[in-house]
């Protein structure tokens, strides 16, 4: 097993954990945590691919840095959305935040 394969498998593990949490959690905060796991896997995969192949290492590291910036922006917005939803509905359960059914 080459080192690149091992790092990609770890990134895949992070993606799988994130998908599992995303589909299984029943509150917005739990889903936010799962999204962060998945984005981390993406960053690790990008850096490993650029560091362990002939591809441009600078491009890989900067790309992962941009992924981190996007993750921070996304977390900020999700925090605001969660606050608004919990004020309006009084809960952050995904099953109760729905008005179309009524």
């Amino acid at each position: 097993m080459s080192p690149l394969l091992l790092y990609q498998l770890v990134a895949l593990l992070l993606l799988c954990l994130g998908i599992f949490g995303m589909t299984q959690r029943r509150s917005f905060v739990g889903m936010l945590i799962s999204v962060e796991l998945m984005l981390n896997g993406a960053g690790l995969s990008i850096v490993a691919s650029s560091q362990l192949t002939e591809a441009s290492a600078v491009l890989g590291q900067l790309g992962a840095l941009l992924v981190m910036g996007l993750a921070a922006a996304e977390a900020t917005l999700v925090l605001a959305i969660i606050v608004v939803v919990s004020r309006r509905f009084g809960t952050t359960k995904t099953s109760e935040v729905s008005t179309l059914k009524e």
Partner: protein
Amino acid sequence: MELMAKISFVIYALIILGGGLVAVTSQSLVRALVGLISTLLGVAGMYMLLATPFMAFMQILIYVGAVAVIVFFAVMLTRADEGGEEADPAPIRQSLGSLAAVAAVGGVLSWVLLTKPVQGLKVPVEVAVEELGKGLMESYFVAFELISVILLVAMSGAVLLAWERRVKK
């Protein structure tokens, strides 16, 4: 020296696995957050092994420093832990569906990874931080500016969203 790298890789992978399992299965959201933080630290260790100490530093600064605090604020502001929204275990159908989703995605991706292995380098490339800075200021200048615009928009959007209600009162 190589043995040390392998041992630390296994340790970091175990930290990531354990932290991730706690993060997605724990019934208390604060514990899930602690699991997330340990996973993030494990990934920072992976970055160190990949000879990218700058990325490890940024991982700790941005993720452990900022994102974890934001998630904690989300837990605190919604009192998500008190009502115990995750307290009752998930219905068995939902868990089975989640496992099916994981098996589908993980199965396809790991099949591709294992059957078409890319023979990478043995030792990671080392890049000086100066080159990263040069890249940000020269080749990837537009992306750098765009990410700052995105951060500004997200920040002001978040403030606006949370402010609206208070003005109405």
